[in-house]
C-alpha cells in the first residue's frame, strides 16, 4: 500500500480521513440539536434555520467556499473574532474540516430529523410520567431510538466529506500535508493529460474508505434495529 501510493498521496489519504472524521464528529452535536429543533419545536426562525441548513446544498461549492473565506478567513468577521482566541481556520486542516462539515451538514441534519420525526411522542410522554426531564427523555428514549438515523446521517456526511472539494479548496486552498485532501489530489491529476490512472488510484482509495464507513454504519444500524425489534 505504501508502495502503491506516493508519500504525498498517502498524506492526502490520512488527511482526508482526519478531516472527514473531525467534520462529522464535530458537527454531530449541532446536527442533532438542529434536527431536534426542526423536528419538534415551532419557533419564529424555523423556516429560516431550515433554509440556512439546506443552503450549502443549493449553492455551488465554490460559492460556499468563497462565503467561508469571507466570514471565517483571517480578515473575515467571524474569523477575526475567533483569531483572538487562537482559533484559526485559514489554511489549516481545521478549515478543511469546517468546510466539509458545513457542506455535509444538510445531509446529517435531514437524516437525523427524519428519524426524530419517526419516534412516537407517546414513548417520550411515558418516560416523562416516570420522572424523566426533557433532557433525560432525550438521552434515554429519543437518542437510542434514533441511533440508526444518526448512523445514516453520519455515513452520508462522512461520504460527502470524503468527496468534498470545491468549497474546501476555495476556502483553505491546497497545501500538501496541511490542506491537501484526497479530492484535491484527484482533481490535480485530472487537470493534466494522462493523469487519469493516478487519479483512478486515489479514487479507489477514497471509495474504499467510504465503503468501509458505509458497511460499519449499516452494521451498527442493523444491530441497533435488531435490538429494538426485540428478537
Amino acid at each position, binding site marked *: 500500500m505504501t508502495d502503491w501510493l506516493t508519500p504525498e498521496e498517502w498524506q492526502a489519504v490520512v488527511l482526508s480521513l482526519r478531516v472527514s472524521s473531525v467534520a462529522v464528529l464535530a458537527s454531530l452535536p449541532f446536527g442533532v440539536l438542529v434536527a431536534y429543533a426542526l423536528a419538534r419545536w415551532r419557533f419564529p426562525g424555523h423556516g429560516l434555520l431550515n433554509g440556512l441548513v439546506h443552503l450549502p446544498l443549493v449553492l455551488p461549492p*465554490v460559492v460556499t*467556499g*468563497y462565503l467561508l*473565506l*469571507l466570514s471565517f*478567513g*483571517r*480578515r*473575515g468577521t467571524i474569523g477575526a473574532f475567533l483569531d483572538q482566541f487562537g482559533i484559526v481556520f*485559514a*489554511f489549516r486542516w481545521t478549515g478543511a474540516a469546517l468546510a466539509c462539515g458545513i457542506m455535509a451538514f444538510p445531509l446529517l441534519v435531514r437524516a437525523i430529523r427524519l428519524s426524530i420525526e419517526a419516534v412516537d411522542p407517546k414513548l417520550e410522554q411515558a418516560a416523562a410520567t416516570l420522572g424523566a426531564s426533557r433532557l433525560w427523555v432525550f438521552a434515554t428514549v429519543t437518542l437510542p431510538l434514533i441511533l440508526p438515523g444518526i448512523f445514516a446521517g453520519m455515513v452520508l456526511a462522512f461520504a460527502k466529506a470524503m468527496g468534498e*472539494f*470545491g468549497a474546501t*479548496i*476555495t476556502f*483553505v*486552498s*491546497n*497545501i500538501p500535508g496541511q*490542506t491537501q485532501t484526497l479530492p*484535491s489530489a484527484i*482533481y*490535480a*491529476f*485530472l*487537470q*493534466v*493529460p494522462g*493523469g487519469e490512472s493516478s487519479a483512478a488510484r486515489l479514487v479507489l482509495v477514497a471509495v474504499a474508505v467510504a465503503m468501509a464507513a458505509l458497511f460499519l454504519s449499516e452494521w451498527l444500524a442493523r444491530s441497533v434495529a435488531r435490538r429494538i425489534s426485540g428478537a
Partner: protein
Amino acid sequence: EEVVVFAAASLKNALDEIAADFGAETGNEVTVSYAGSSQLAKQIIEGAPADLFISANVQWMDEVAKAGLLAGDARGDLLGNTLVLIAHGKDAAAVEIGADTDLTALLDGGKLAMAMVDSVPAGQYGKAALESLGLWEGVQAEVAQSDNVRAALALVSTGEAPYGIVYATDAAADDNVSVVGEFPADSYPSIIYPAALLTVAADAADRAFYDALSGEAAKASFEKQGFTVLTQTQ
C-alpha cells in the same frame, strides 16, 4: 448557422463581446461553452459537438490533436498572457523580481497564493518562473494552491494571503489587489492560448468565426482584457 465554441473559462469576457459582434454582423449565432481546458478537451475527445476549441494551454490542444480531431489546417496560437506578482491592497509597494528577491521575508509568515502548481496552467507557469529564478525551493512550503487562478486571486483579494501569482489579465480588474511586479518573460515558457477548428466544423460560419478571432475587432476585445494577441493564425 450556429457556431459552437468550447473555450477556456478565463476568456469569457472577451469572447462574449466578440461573439456578440460577430453575431450582429453575420447573423450567425455563436454559442460558447466555458469550462476548464481539461474538461473541454476530454469532452471533445468524447465527441462533443464543438466547432472550435480555444484552450488555455498547449498540452490539452495537443491531446485533441492526438485524437485526430483538429481540422488539419486551422490551428494557431491565438493569445498570450503574462505572469504577475500581486499583493493585497490598492497601493502595495512594488517588488523587484529577480534571483535575489527574498519572498519568504516578503510573505512574513503569510502564504503565496497560486493555482495548483503541478496541474493548473497558471500554477505550472508560476512554478517554472520561480524555479528558473531559484526561488522555488525557499518558498515551496508557503504556497497555497487553488484549483484555478481566480481562486488564488480571491485569496489575495480578501487578504487571506498577502501575495499571489496570477495572470496579468486577472490582476487588472480587481480593486483590492495591486500588481507589484512582473515576472521576466524568459523565466517561464510563453503562455499560449491556442485556438483550432475541429473536424466536426462543417459550415462556413465556423471558419468565419475562426478567422474573426484574429481580426481587428477581436484584437481590441482581447487587449481590453489584458491579453497579448499573438502572431496571426494560419
